[in-house]
């Protein structure tokens, strides 16, 4: 029995490791592809070369991250079989097609036009090249569409029936793809990808401006990134709120864990907002709770007395690990509020014409560089750990989804993957930082500047 337990933990860890690295790269692909599309569009529209210089500079970063991102995604396409073969057998009929369409509609669009986008401007001319950039950006978004649909279906399954052998059979594809939680998750994640990229670009630009305060290209990208944060951070908070409100209907355990609510408050007392607590799974209560009375009711029920289903209303074996969900949520929201503040401060500085001279703000932006992606990762921890102990919510338990392989194999491979990832992505990050240290040049060459001349018959 201990072998099964440790195999389960190792298999979950393996999925968490591989998806965490991949999702940051994938989100960066989405964010950068759209940023690049806007830059090239502005270049074509206004004809100012500065846009092209900034475009080429970030294209270099894009070239380094996108291919490694694809390669790190490959292992995920097969994770379901390696460690979760029972889930694959049970739900393959539904999850498979969604992932299949992801590759078919999106991956190919992205990968097929990538070569032209990265190296082809000289060879195909600006119009076709802009089309390629748009295709890559669209591909990255469609990719997110399908994969989030698959994930959302596992959170809020719909449109299926269960066959005689216990397998999920597709009944209504529309209901499967547009399952109840999918719209919220799609918007929330797309915004997260853009925000994560924006804080990163703002951080890198601020770092460059601290060294070269007059560089016009660093200023341009700094300003663009901060505009993005100003607009998207509040939008993300609103979307996140509605996402949570919807979860309250479809996954009440998850919201109870987020709130750290073990017992329902007495009639009329209202739900408190717990700022801090140490949730205890054994005693099924919180230690060190610090809360503001009734505020929880305000954002959960829009009144001062409403309550939500508490954790003790569910069977102990049906609730997620509360402390992880509880803290990950607070970490995410805290970072979200910081990003909101970052956007607002940048706006005030802008109104006083001090955006490109306030060095303290630049230092702050450097510190905030990883904030967007960290918030995104903790958001995923909330939603994925919060769904436990199920893979297909309410229907298939995580423990029943596992492959029948030796736990030694799973544990050894998980450690190897972790070590390998830390090494490779560590080196990759180091190279990226070395490039980001220097701002874009005038006549920025872009990735592989000679490649267009090295190929082709001309």
């Amino acid at each position, binding site marked *: 029995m201990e072998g099964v337990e440790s195999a389960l933990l190792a298999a979950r860890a393996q999925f968490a490791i591989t998806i965490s690295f991949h999702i940051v790269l994938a989100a960066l692909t989405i964010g950068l592809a759209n940023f690049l599309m806007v830059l090239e569009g502005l270049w074509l529209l206004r004809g100012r070369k500065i846009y092209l210089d900034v475009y080429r500079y970030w294209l270099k970063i894009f070239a380094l991250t996108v291919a490694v991102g694809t390669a790190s995604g490959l292992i995920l*396409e097969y994770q379901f079989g390696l460690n979760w073969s029972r889930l*694959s057998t049970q739900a393959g009929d539904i999850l498979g097609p969604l992932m299949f369409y992801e590759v078919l509609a999106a991956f190919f669009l992205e990968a097929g036009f990538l070569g032209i986008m990265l190296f082809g401007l000289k060879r195909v001319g600006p119009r076709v090249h802009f089309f390629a950039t748009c295709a890559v950006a669209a591909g990255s978004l469609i990719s997110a569409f399908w994969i989030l649909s698959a994930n959302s279906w596992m959170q809020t399954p719909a449109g299926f029936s269960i066959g005689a052998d216990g397998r999920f059979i597709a009944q209504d594809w529309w209901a499967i793809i547009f399952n109840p939680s999918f719209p919220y998750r799609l918007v929330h994640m797309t915004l997260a990808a853009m925000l994560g990229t924006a804080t990163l670009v703002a951080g890198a630009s601020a770092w460059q401006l601290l060294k070269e305060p007059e560089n016009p290209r660093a200023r341009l990208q700094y300003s663009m990134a901060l505009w993005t944060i100003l607009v998207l951070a509040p939008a993300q908070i609103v979307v996140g709120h509605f996402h949570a409100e919807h979860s309250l209907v479809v996954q009440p355990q998850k919201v109870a864990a987020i709130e750290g609510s073990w017992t329902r408050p007495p009639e009329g007392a209202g739900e408190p907002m717990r700022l801090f607590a140490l949730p205890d799974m054994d005693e099924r209560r919180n230690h060190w709770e610090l809360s503001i009375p009734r505020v929880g009711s305000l954002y959960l029920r829009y009144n001062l007395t409403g309550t939500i289903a508490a954790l003790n209303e569910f069977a102990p074996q049906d609730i997620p690990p509360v402390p992880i969900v509880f803290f990950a949520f607070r970490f995410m929201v805290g970072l979200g509020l910081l990003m909101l503040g970052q956007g607002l401060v940048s706006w005030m500085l802008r109104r006083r014409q001090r955006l490109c001279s306030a060095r303290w703000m630049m230092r702050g932006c450097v510190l905030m560089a990883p904030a967007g992606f960290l918030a995104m990762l903790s958001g995923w921890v909330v939603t994925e750990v919060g769904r436990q102990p199920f893979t297909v919510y309410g229907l298939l338990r995580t423990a029943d989804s596992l492959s029948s392989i030796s736990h030694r194999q799973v544990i050894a491979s998980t450690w190897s993957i972790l070590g390998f990832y830390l090494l490779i992505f560590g080196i990759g990050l180091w190279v990226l930082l070395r490039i980001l240290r220097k701002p874009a040049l005038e006549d920025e060459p872009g990735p*592989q500047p000679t490649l267009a001349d090295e*190929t082709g018959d001309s």
Partner: protein
Amino acid sequence: MWGNDWITLLSAAALAFSVLNYVLLDGTDLGVGVLLGFTRCSKQRRAMAVTILPIWDANETWLVLGGGGLLALFPMAYAILLPALYLPFIVMFLALILRAAALEFRDYAPDQTVKRCIDGLLMCGSLLIGGSQGIVLGALVQGLPNSGAQYTGDGREWMGPFPLFCGAVLVVGYTWLGACWLYWRTEDELQQRSKRQAKSLAVVTIALLAVLVVWTVKLDVWYAQRLSDTFVWLPGAALFVSLTIGFILGCRSRRDYLPLFAALGIFVLAFAMMIAALFPLIVPPNLTLQAAASSTVSQIFMLIGFAVLIPVTLIYNTYGFKVFSGKVHPVRD
């Protein structure tokens, strides 16, 4: 029932098409990766990398389609194959990441020594990818114990001599494709050397393939019956002879793309032979396509998408290839 059979056959064809495309396209890139590690001159290595830089990512995507397709169309086969070949698959995925990182980051190497090391890693990655893919195919042909849609073996079937031999064959074969590709896409000394390599690798690959066929026939009575069927071996042998002649003539002709296409033809032929031997099984010794297939609704849902989107994909991928076609002439190291 006939309708369902027909749809499952179409699904199998779609999956086979994806896997074959992967083997042909990325196999060539992997071959180039292997050869890159053996090349001393840095300018030539640059030329080799430039031939694949704009397209390798798209080529690799066929493997993602293969994975998604297998899960979607034949979930049982997916659920047996991956746990059974756990280690080779994990090695392959890590090697794929290594290859991607090496290929994209090699131009950021601070000096030639580091670059040489990165190219060494690129070669190791390419070798491991090709080798583990060969092992996977070999273990599949050899058969994987399973019952009730779950793998029941001990995780060591792939360590046998036959899968390991298949791994070696595929690595040599990929390298052969890579040499033919370089003969087509490069000039001067590199082209001449690639031609010599292509010729000797052709001899080795063909010899290894001959051993492989004999070994496969000895592996199982079923395979022996299948492959000795006149409708299988006669067209197979005829095609093989004409492709080999095509390769020899191609090496002499001025059309320097001919050897590559002849070599790809031999790969297609070998792949077709494997399918002919396996059919209607998807995971020997017992799991058939029918038993492993997902529900008809799911299959139809995907086949429609496949029929609409794959032609479009092929068109713009071909366009992407065309933009960067022609001889490569490196201007820097």
